[in-house]
């Protein structure tokens, strides 16, 4: 299998940056996502799609706005719109599992593995940094672990899933990933950040 090149460029290299004299506030990384898929239900088949995605990923998914599920290093899925889910996983074969699990009568599976990039931000200052970019409430009460949100920062359309108390995975168009990573780095400058 050909190794997929990162769209983040040579500039996104490990190290500590910004004001990190007292330690870094956040850590940025590019999680390994072999599969990124958008699943959409035909009208009236939303429940069937949710169940099929659960079978395909092994996740326990609920059908509710922003609801999601996450299993570390395995698979993640969250609701991004009415009858629509973003599903990702480390394994490149997940897209085939999902295509088998979701029948043509239930909905569609669109492979976005080469069209999206996932960026991970984690650390104690994560909410502070993300709040600079997005008009969303990132507190744990309003945005619980596993939940997802679709939002935008100017022209960057971003789908966000909380995967830990202080950790979020952000999915962006691959062609915007380098510019978005730069915006994220600028926002993290004052708290100090590490790239790993």
């Amino acid at each position, binding site marked *: 299998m050909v190794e997929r090149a990162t769209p983040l460029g040579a500039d996104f290299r490990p190290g500590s940056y910004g004001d990190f004299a007292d330690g870094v506030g956040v850590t940025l990384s590019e999680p390994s996502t072999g599969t990124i898929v958008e699943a959409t239900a035909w*009208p009236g088949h939303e429940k069937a799609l949710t169940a099929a995605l659960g079978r395909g990923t092994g996740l326990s998914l609920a059908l509710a*706005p*922003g609801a999601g599920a996450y299993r570390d290093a395995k698979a993640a899925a969250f609701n*991004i*719109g*009415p009858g*629509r889910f973003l599903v990702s996983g480390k394994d490149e074969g997940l897209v085939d599992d999902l295509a088998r699990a979701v029948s043509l009568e239930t909905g569609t599976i669109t492979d976005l593995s080469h069209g999206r990039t996932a960026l991970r931000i984690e650390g104690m200052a994560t909410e502070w940094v993300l709040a600079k970019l997005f*008009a969303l409430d990132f507190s744990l009460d309003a945005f619980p672990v596993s939940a997802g*949100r*679709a*939002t*935008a920062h100017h022209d960057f*359309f971003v789908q966000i899933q909380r995967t830990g108390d202080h950790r979020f995975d952000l999915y962006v168009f691959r062609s915007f990933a380098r510019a978005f990573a730069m915006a994220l780095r600028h926002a993290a400058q004052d708290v100090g950040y590490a790239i790993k």
Partner: protein
Amino acid sequence: MLISCPHCGPRDLAEFSYQGDATRTRPEPASTDTKAWHDYVYTRPNPAGPHHEYWQHAGGCRAHLLIVRDTLSHEIHSVALARSANASGARA
């Protein structure tokens, strides 16, 4: 200004894009009634008050919405998913 998306909840206006006047009815595509096409394209009531409009939550769930907005105060009177609103005949 905030718009309460039926799916996502209250979101900033910047996430939404205006999609047009929801009060017009497009003539049949094969129609040769020039007056009907002229009225559809050019004749706008431009009300001072509540106005039915299509919007899209383009920077969010990407759903198309039917919004009733007051053109004098910009107050949003109601927001519904366009698909359900049209199905229930709520369109003006």
